[in-house]
């Protein structure tokens, strides 16, 4: 080992004597005679070696345990199924990031690639034991907040749907807060511009405020006060004031009229509803009328009976008329027989007529 260095010693200075220069004149501590190994018994040496072997074994166990633990923690011993998510932008997505469901990690991104058509294809490994949370109706989102990394999340609305088959491909919905900021700033700028325009010197709001100020000035002025402020000039305000006075007077006279009307009403009340008033008389008259009506009802009943009898008489008369018809028919037939008899007699001689002539018209 020692001979290595002398390769290219620099010319002038004493070459850095490399290992083993036989230790010439070094002022090394002479009080340090090489004491290679402290005297030790064979037994203590054996125990030392045993302890060293135990330490070696301990370390081997530690390394094996650590490797196995890390593999287990990374899901190396878990059966997984694939899920492919497509999106238009892979920003924020990294290999190894979690896909969470209700806050629990249920999958891990294993690969990101550029697919056909320029979209991004994210490979997600979902452990089979967690795959039942994903259904065919599940929705996947990629959210990017202001602080922290992007988050890949799965939402399942209907847990009764059929489970998501292995190797399915789904679209990812993106929600990017930082992408919203420029739009928000633009909107805020518009609002500020509008406010600026509203509060500008020639704006409608400013004009309205000026008018308002004029109004309040007039309101506070000595001449006319509120009325002058409302009507605009002092003369009108005075007329309004006069109007109010007249109205007041009118109200007073109306008050007197009302008092008088009140007296009249009271008197009418006494005459109509008083002891000798109209209403008691009317009540007595009604009572009498009631009695009269009852009498009239009885009379009508009697008339009704009379009428019934008259009806019977009339029926008899109708029958008599029918019989009279029959009688008349009998008489008529008797007369026709007599007539025929006379005719017969007339035809017989000496009763025949002297001349028989037919006169033509």
């Amino acid at each position, binding site marked *: *080992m020692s001979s290595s260095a002398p390769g290219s010693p620099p010319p002038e200075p004493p070459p*850095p004597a490399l*290992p*083993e220069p036989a230790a010439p004149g070094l002022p090394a501590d002479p009080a340090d005679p090489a004491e290679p190994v402290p005297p030790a018994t064979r037994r203590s*040496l054996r125990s*030392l070696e045993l302890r*060293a072997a135990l*330490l070696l074994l301990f370390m081997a166990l*530690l390394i094996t345990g650590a490797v196995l633990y890390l593999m287990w923690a990374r899901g190396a011993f878990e059966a997984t199924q694939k899920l492919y998510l497509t999106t238009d932008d892979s920003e924020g997505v990294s290999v190894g990031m979690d896909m969470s469901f209700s806050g629990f990690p249920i999958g891990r991104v294993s690969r990101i690639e550029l697919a056909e058509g320029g979209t991004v294809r994210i490979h997600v490994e979902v452990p089979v034991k967690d795959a039942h949370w994903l259904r065919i109706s599940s929705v996947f989102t990629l959210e990017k907040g202001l602080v922290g990394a992007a988050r890949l999340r799965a939402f399942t609305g209907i847990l009764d749907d059929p489970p998501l088959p292995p190797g399915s491909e789904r679209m990812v919905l993106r929600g990017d807060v930082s992408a919203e900021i420029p739009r928000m700033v633009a909107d805020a700028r518009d609002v500020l511009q509008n406010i600026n325009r509203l509060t500008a010197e020639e704006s409608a709001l400013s004009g309205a405020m000026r008018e308002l100020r004029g109004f309040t000035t007039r309101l506070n002025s000595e001449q006319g006060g509120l009325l002058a402020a409302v009507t605009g000039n002092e003369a009108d305000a005075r007329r309004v004031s006069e109007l109010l006075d007249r109205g007041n007077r009118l109200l007073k006279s109306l008050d007197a009229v009302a008092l008088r009307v009140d007296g009249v009403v009271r008197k009418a009340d006494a005459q109509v509803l008083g002891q000798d008033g109209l209403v008691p008389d009317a009540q007595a008259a009604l009572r009498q009328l009631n009695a009269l009506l009852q009498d009239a009802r009885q009379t009508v009943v009697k008339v009704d009976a009379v009428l019934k009898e008259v009806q019977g008489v009339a029926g008899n008369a109708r029958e008599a008329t029918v019989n009279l018809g029959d009688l008349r028919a009998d008489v008529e037939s008797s007369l026709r027989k007599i007539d025929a008899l006379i005719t017969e007699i007339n035809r017989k001689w000496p009763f025949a007529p002297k001349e028989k002539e037919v006169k033509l018209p």
Partner: protein
Amino acid sequence: MTGAGDIMPAMGTAFSLYGWLLQLGRGVLRWVLGWWLVVFIGAQLAVLAFSPSSYRRETRGVVLRHLYNAAGPGLPGFTTLMALFNVVVIRIVVVTAFAYGLTQYALDAVVRVLVLELIPLVAALFVAVEYTIPSGSELYKLRRGGGFQAMRAQGVDPLSREVLPRVLGGIFAVLLLALVSCVVSLVLAYIAVHGFTWAGVASYNHAVGTIFNPVVSLIFGMKTVLFAVAVSLLPMANALRDLPRRASRTSVELQGLVQMFVLMLVIEIASLVGNYY
């Protein structure tokens, strides 16, 4: 440089530049040679470490004893100290995360800061100060005292008898201390975040699994091993050579320590670049 100045005094500045360049070149050469020696010794030791002849009956005992001397005595103290330190750091990180409403990142931050970054570094420094630098110094004295020659005279290779066991002991100690502290730190982080309950085990395992992805695990393992190698190899390699004298005449231990720090810094930066870029 001065010689050159005598020859052409009129062009003093040009020659001083020449001299400066010459000195710089020599410095660079020395530096390269120094590191080459370290690498060469490391390669020799690697060959020896993987050859069964180094573990014959007589040397196996020596290796085992050095393994125990490197790791055994410091293990309880270091683990206790790191546990206390872990509790403090975990508490600070968790409370801060709570205060800012970033609870979900607390565990991540704790595991990344402590397990991935701090513990391997601290373990390596502890082993360096506790074992490898004193051991290197011991080796240096042995060599300067002619111990190596005596060994050779007896037909014993000092490299496999004295150097290899120390290097292996240092590497083993760093790995063991770092591993034990990482396990303790993971347990403490769980208790700090979830308390004494089993309820959070599933989510905790998931979080740890997410942090230790293959790349991070590989970088973590490589970093720890490289720290261990750096911490163990440099003091031994420096003990096997005579460092050029400097004006300040710093001791071998100190020069070795500075070199070691530089190397650890490079390893740490490389691991950070690998993890976070």
